[in-house]
């Protein structure tokens, strides 16, 4: 319950911080950190335009997407406080729920019959397929390290004893930041700023959405960011008391947001054709984590 509330709170200002960081880095003053939320509320108040090509799939997909991410957040713990629902193997369900939302976004993009959105959908489906192994290997490695199989149990028993385990935590943080960047279609993979179809992935998929639906999709992106931030913060919280965990949680979220802003300010978008290779690198980094865990447990024969 704690984590759900905290993530929802963090999702309100996360993108704002990213945008603010970017403006400061480029020498501008920038808008307030709640500006993205204000924009989303503006979308909620607007009417919609639907394409004559679309069917009901296009109208239900944003709600499904939103619900799936919200549901996935329910499984995320905060230190020693479990998520609303916690059981063995809940991270499998977590990953598959996100995939459920993605499925609907992809088919809704193809529902418009637009070539831009088809392009975005094609890339999104491929990238999300490629990124999935990294998530599972990292979670598998931590399951191996702790001997547990649920988010809450893994994170609450995760304690860093030796130096190598800190390295593992650092690597896992890197992997999760990159997963979050790919899942949210941010800079090195995708450029949300430009509306040039050659560089777009996620943005291209929602070209035809408007009004309430667009607001839902935008806020879902915020929630996804905060959700990954919560997972990353869990790497560092362990089983501390709540007076430490909540500040750490927000510190990690803000740090994560600033990192995203800095990455977006100082990195160029990759060439689209090289993205699959880059995403594969994530899988190999997560394999490093796996072998690190094996080393830690002295399992090498």
């Amino acid at each position, binding site marked *: 319950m704690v984590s759900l509330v905290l993530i929802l709170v963090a999702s309100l200002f996360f993108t704002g911080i990213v945008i603010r960081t970017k403006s400061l880095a480029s020498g501008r003053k920038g808008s307030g950190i709640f500006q993205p939320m204000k924009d989303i509320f503006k979308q909620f108040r607007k009417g919609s335009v639907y394409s004559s090509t679309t069917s009901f799939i296009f109208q239900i997909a944003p709600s499904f997407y939103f*619900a799936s991410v919200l549901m996935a957040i329910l499984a995320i713990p905060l230190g020693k406080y479990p998520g609303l629902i916690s059981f063995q193997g809940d991270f499998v369900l977590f990953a*598959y729920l996100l995939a459920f939302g993605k*499925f609907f976004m992809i088919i809704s993009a*193809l529902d418009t019959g637009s070539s831009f959105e088809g392009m975005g959908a094609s890339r999104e489906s491929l990238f999300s397929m490629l990124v999935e192994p990294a998530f599972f290997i990292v979670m*598998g490695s931590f399951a191996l390290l702790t001997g547990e199989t649920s988010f809450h149990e893994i994170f609450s028993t995760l304690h860093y004893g030796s130096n190598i385990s800190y390295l593992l935590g650092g690597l896992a943080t890197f992997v999760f930041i990159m997963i979050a960047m790919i899942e949210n279609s941010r800079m090195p993979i995708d450029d949300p700023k430009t509306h040039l179809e050659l560089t777009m992935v996620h943005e291209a998929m929602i070209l035809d959405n408007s009004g309430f639906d667009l607001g839902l999709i935008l806020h879902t992106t915020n929630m996804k960011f905060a959700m990954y931030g919560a997972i990353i913060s869990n790497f560092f919280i362990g089983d501390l008391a709540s007076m430490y965990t909540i500040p750490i949680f927000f510190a990690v979220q803000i740090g994560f947001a600033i990192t995203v802003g800095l990455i977006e300010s100082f990195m160029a978008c990759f060439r689209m054709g090289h993205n699959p290779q880059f995403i594969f690198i994530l899988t190999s980094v997560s394999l490093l984590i796996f072998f690190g865990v094996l080393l830690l447990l002295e*399992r090498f024969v």
Partner: protein
Amino acid sequence: MKTLIELFNLTAIATIVALPFLKVKGKGIVTLIAICLQVALVSIISIKVFSGTPIDYSYLGSYITGAIPVRVDYLSSWFILTISFTFLTGAVYGLHYMKRYIDQSANISLHASAYILTFTSLINLCIVQNGLVFLVIWEIMALSSFIIIIFEHYKKETLKAGINFLIQSHVSILFLTLAFMWVKIKTGTFDFSGITTYTSTEPALIGVGLFILFFLGFAIKAGFVPFHTWLPLAHPAAPAHISGVMSGVIIKIGIFGILRVLLLLKTNFVPIGYFILILSVITGVYGVMLAIIQHNLKKLLAYHSIENIGIIGIGIGLGCLGLGYNNQLLIVLGFSGALLHTLNHSLFKSLLFYSSGNVYQLTHTLDIESLGGLIKKMPKTAIFFLIGSLAICGLPPFNGFISEFLIYLGLFKSLSSVDFSLTVLMMFAILGLVLIGGLALICFTKAFSIVFLGESRHISMDKVENEKPASTLSFYAIVMLIMAIGVVPMLFLKVLALPVGQFAANISIDTAFEYSEIASTASMVGIYSAVFILLVVFVFLIRKMVTKNRPVSIANTWGCGYNGSSKKMQYTASSFIRTYRKLASSFLDIDKHKKEAKGIFPKVVHQETHPYDKIERWLIDKPIYNLRQLLSRFTFLQNGNVQSYILYGFIFIALVILVPEIIEKIKFLINFLNQL
């Protein structure tokens, strides 16, 4: 009980005898009634088995076969129920599907008889425990399913695919015959219990060898890579309800066979587990990798059957490792995952095939590239296809997730409990399963959206009729079961505890405790799924409430300033998977013809891709080609001259008579020389 089983078989025989004498319209209805009756009978049997004790009786048999034991245990009952349900929905759907062919009266009689015969033989395969009788029924099953596949035998490809199926089925029978003969020679009995007595006295290597022989036979039927090549040919050739039944349950008899042999064997299960697990991961990934590049809807679904056989195999492999290492948890998770996925796959795959049948009936094509926008003409079929797609991708809250979840849990649990090589193997299997899931997502977003969404790509929508309500009649029952497994999995797991317990009891391990733990985890997943459904509905209702008074306008799809018809500019199936195709090109075998635009006023350009199976090319086509090359050296013998054929006959007869004579003479000569 005995009378019920006999009544079951008698119903089949009586219906088959009666069918030719009926009018065309009556044939379908009588078949449906007969199948209903049969399903009712075997359901009573299975439910009795599940609630009470297993059935075990024996026929006297003949001198050749020996006694014919009939045993209905929990494993048989699980498969009987799975098979019966799909055959029932298949018959209901088939009744609608066959209306189009009503003028082919004789053909329909044959088809209906073969349908009943296939069903009857499948059920009998589950309960008979005599090797020779098993083989005979297996042969009946193979022949009758050949007949139901080639319903449209006047089409050349159909017949070709059918014959391919027939030959590969017989290769499978060959392996099985060898395996049963091995046991018969060593123990002198065809009874299945001979396998147990034989392998318990011999070293483990013999048991593993015997298993591999059985596995080869059953794997061809089930479609494990590299024995899968008949599947993608046979499915598109058969009528839709047959494809559904074939992919849903006929290939599962191979899985049943593997499980049955595992129950009977007494050997070292560790190497078997490794073998099945590795082969299954390859099967799963390879199946879905090829599925993505298919542009024929049914062929795509056929490759997905291979993928799902892989997932079932991963479960079985996991269970075997559990047996080998005496790990209760793995036995429970592996076998219950495999058995549940067998049921799940039969549900969503038959749903998908029946839906594709509706697409075919209204558009007369299965080529994904020429379809599009069908959701407006057939909304119900589209929704059912969507549910099937979500379920086959293993997404919650549908049934596919539950079985994949059990297998995932087994893989993650065994990461930490055993030795190094097993940990690495488990990671490999997890990677495989994750890739299967991700690739399936690409494949089904492609299949669903290109066929049903957007606008039609080649076919004129005016010519497409609206769907008939009768065409989706049987879908409701399937979807209900799909949802039930997704939301209340513990009910099904409770039943599954019995067949899974059989495997554990075989090595005298009690799995009750682990099982209850798993069941409670699964019920958590079910609750989570139910909450998810409620949340989705809730969000959607809120959206509806908020947007009720908002202005809504309809316009063209945003085209970056271009406002004309964008039909031809839509993404197609090939363009959707283009990046994937390039990434995976080294595993694929795609024949591509391209004519590019040249000059200032380019003429018509076109591009064709024909996906082919690399394994089929190297394992089937190349050897056959080489064999034909070799045999073609002897074509001079076949010169069309009747005189020379008569001469061959004479030469043959002369050889038959002379050769023994000559041998006698030579022997005599040698003896004579020896005596000198």
